C-alpha cells in the first residue's frame, strides 16, 4: 500500500446562495483545488463527488463545467459523512496503486433543494421519521439525557458556540463572522428543546475539494505535501448496543482505529475539526476522540485547551456552527482547513507549528441505529 498525500485543496465561501446551482458551487471548489495543486484539469484520472440533495449524476455536472469527462467518476451519498467518504475512497484508489492522481469533491446546495427552510429528516417511510424524528430532535434527545445524567448546564454547552463563532470571525470562508454571547445563544428561539437556534449549525450551501497523489510523486507538484496518516470510515451500529445514548460509541471506535492506523495518539493532535452540528456534540467528541476523560470535557473547554492558543485548538474554521454545514461538503471542507493549518496558511487563526491534524464527521439518521456513518482522517506534514 502506498502513502497518499494531498497536494491541493479548495473551497467556496460558505453561505446561502439561492442564485448558485449545486454544480456551479462544486465547479468553483474543484477549480480552486486544481489551481492550488498547480495541475491541469486534464491530469485528473478519477473523481468522487459527494452530495445529498442535488439530484442525478451531480459529479458529472461539476466536472463537466471544468472540462473533465471520460474518467472514472463516482457519486457518493453518505449524509454528513459524504465528503469524508469521498476523501476516503480517493485515498484508497491512490493507496492501492489503481491511479496516480484524483479529486474528491463535496457539494451541497440546501437553498435550491426541496429541503430549504426545513429540518433534515430520515428517508421517506423511515419509522422514526414518520413519528416526528428529525436531526435536531435526535440530538436534542441525547442532549436532554446528557444534561440530566451528567449535570451539564445549557450555559456550559453554549460556550462551544461562543468559541466557534469567535473562530469563524477569522475565517474568510465562514458563513457567519459574528461573535455571540452565552445569553444570545441560550435565549434564541427553541428548535427542539433544550436545543435553541444558536446551538445549531445553520443550513448552508457550499463546496470543497481536495486533490490526492501518492506521497512519492507529491514532490513533483508541491514543496508542502500533507500526508493522510489515517482514513477510517464506519457505518452505524444498532442503538441497542449504544451504551447510554449520549456519547457517540461510533466515534470512539472510529477514532481508535484511526489512531492505530496512524501510529499516533490523541496527545499528538495539534489541531482538530470535529462534527459540531450542535454545540453539545463538541463536548462529547472531546471524550470520544481521546482529548480528555469523561467528566473533564467542560473543563477542557473552559480552560481554553481547545481554543486558539490552547494545546488542541478545535474547529479553528468556526466549525459547522459558524463556518456552516453544507452537509456533503463538510467532510472535505474540514480537510481543506486542516491542510491550510498544516501548511501554515490559516492566517489569523493559524495554530503555530501544527504538525498533526484530525478531522471527524458523523451523520445520517435511520431507525434502529446510533447514526448513519462516521469518519476520521488524520493528516500530518
Amino acid at each position, binding site marked *: 500500500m502506498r502513502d497518499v498525500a494531498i497536494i491541493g485543496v479548495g473551497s467556496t465561501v460558505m453561505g446561502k446562495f439561492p442564485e448558485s446551482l449545486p454544480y456551479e458551487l462544486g465547479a468553483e471548489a474543484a477549480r480552486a483545488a486544481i489551481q492550488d495543486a498547480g495541475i491541469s484539469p486534464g491530469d485528473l484520472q478519477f473523481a468522487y463527488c459527494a452530495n445529498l440533495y442535488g439530484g442525478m449524476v451531480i459529479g458529472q455536472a461539476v466536472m463537466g463545467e471544468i472540462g473533465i469527462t471520460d474518467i472514472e467518476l463516482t457519486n457518493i451519498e453518505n449524509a454528513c459523512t459524504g465528503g469524508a467518504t469521498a476523501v476516503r475512497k480517493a485515498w484508497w484508489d491512490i493507496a492501492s496503486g489503481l491511479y496516480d492522481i484524483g479529486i474528491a469533491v463535496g457539494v451541497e446546495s440546501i437553498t435550491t433543494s426541496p429541503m430549504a427552510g*426545513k*429540518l433534515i*429528516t430520515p428517508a421517506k417511510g423511515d*419509522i*422514526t*421519521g*414518520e*413519528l*416526528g*424524528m*428529525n436531526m*435536531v*430532535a435526535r440530538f*436534542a*434527545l*441525547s442532549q*436532554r*439525557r446528557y444534561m*440530566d*445524567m451528567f449535570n451539564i448546564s445549557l450555559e456550559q454547552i453554549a460556550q462551544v458556540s461562543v468559541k466557534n463563532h469567535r473562530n469563524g470571525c477569522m475565517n474568510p470562508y465562514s458563513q457567519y463572522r459574528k461573535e455571540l454571547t452565552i445569553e444570545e445563544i441560550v435565549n434564541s*428561539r*427553541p*428548535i*427542539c*428543546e*433544550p*436545543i435553541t437556534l444558536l446551538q445549531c449549525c445553520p443550513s448552508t450551501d457550499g463546496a470543497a475539494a481536495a486533490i490526492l497523489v501518492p506521497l512519492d510523486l507529491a514532490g513533483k507538484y508541491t514543496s508542502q505535501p500533507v500526508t493522510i496518516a489515517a482514513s477510517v470510515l464506519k457505518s452505524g451500529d*444498532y*442503538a*441497542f*448496543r449504544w451504551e447510554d*445514548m449520549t456519547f457517540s460509541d461510533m466515534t470512539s471506535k472510529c477514532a481508535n482505529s484511526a489512531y492505530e492506523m496512524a501510529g499516533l495518539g490523541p496527545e499528538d493532535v495539534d489541531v482538530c475539526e470535529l462534527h459540531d452540528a450542535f454545540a453539545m456534540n463538541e463536548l462529547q467528541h472531546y471524550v470520544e476522540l481521546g482529548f480528555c476523560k469523561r467528566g473533564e470535557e467542560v473543563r477542557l473547554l473552559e480552560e481554553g485547551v481547545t481554543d486558539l492558543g490552547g494545546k488542541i485548538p478545535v474547529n479553528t474554521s468556526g466549525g459547522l456552527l459558524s463556518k456552516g454545514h453544507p452537509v456533503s461538503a463538510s467532510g472535505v471542507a474540514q480537510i481543506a482547513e486542516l491542510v491550510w493549518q498544516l501548511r501554515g496558511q490559516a492566517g489569523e487563526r493559524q495554530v503555530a507549528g501544527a504538525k498533526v491534524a484530525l478531522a471527524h464527521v458523523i451523520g445520517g439518521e435511520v*431507525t*434502529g441505529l446510533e447514526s448513519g456513518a462516521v469518519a476520521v482522517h488524520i493528516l500530518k506534514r
Partner: protein
Amino acid sequence: MKTGVPFREGLFQGSDEKGSLLGARCRQCGQIIFPRREACLNCLGNDLELIQLSRKGKLYSYTIVHMPSEHFEPPYAVGWIELPEGVKIFSQIRGWQERPLETGMDMALHFEKLWDEEEKEVVGYVFRPSTNGGA
C-alpha cells in the same frame, strides 16, 4: 366516523387497553428487538419468539419540537421510552402540556390517532405520563 388504520403493519396488535407493541426475543442470545425482524440483529440467529412488550416504561429522554414535521404541527413532544425489557422505543408523547416531562418519569402506552389521511385515521402507539405507577 373515519376508519382507523395502523400506521405500520406488524408493529403492534390491538389498539385498546389490551393492545401491545410486538417485539421479538432471540432464543439464542436473549436480545430483544423492536420492531421484529426475520433474524436476530445481535447474533443473526433465526430462532426468535414473538413477544408482547410491556405497556409501561420510564422516560429515557424527551424533546419538545418547535418545527413542523411531515405529519405533526408544532409544538409536539417525542421521546425515548425505556421498557423493563431494556428496549428503548421512539414515540410521540402526549399529555405533556398537562404533566411537565421529566427524565425518568413513569410512562404508559396508549393507542391514539396519529394523523388523518384522506378518508382514514392513522392509528399508532403513543406514550403518556402514567397516572398509576410505571414499570
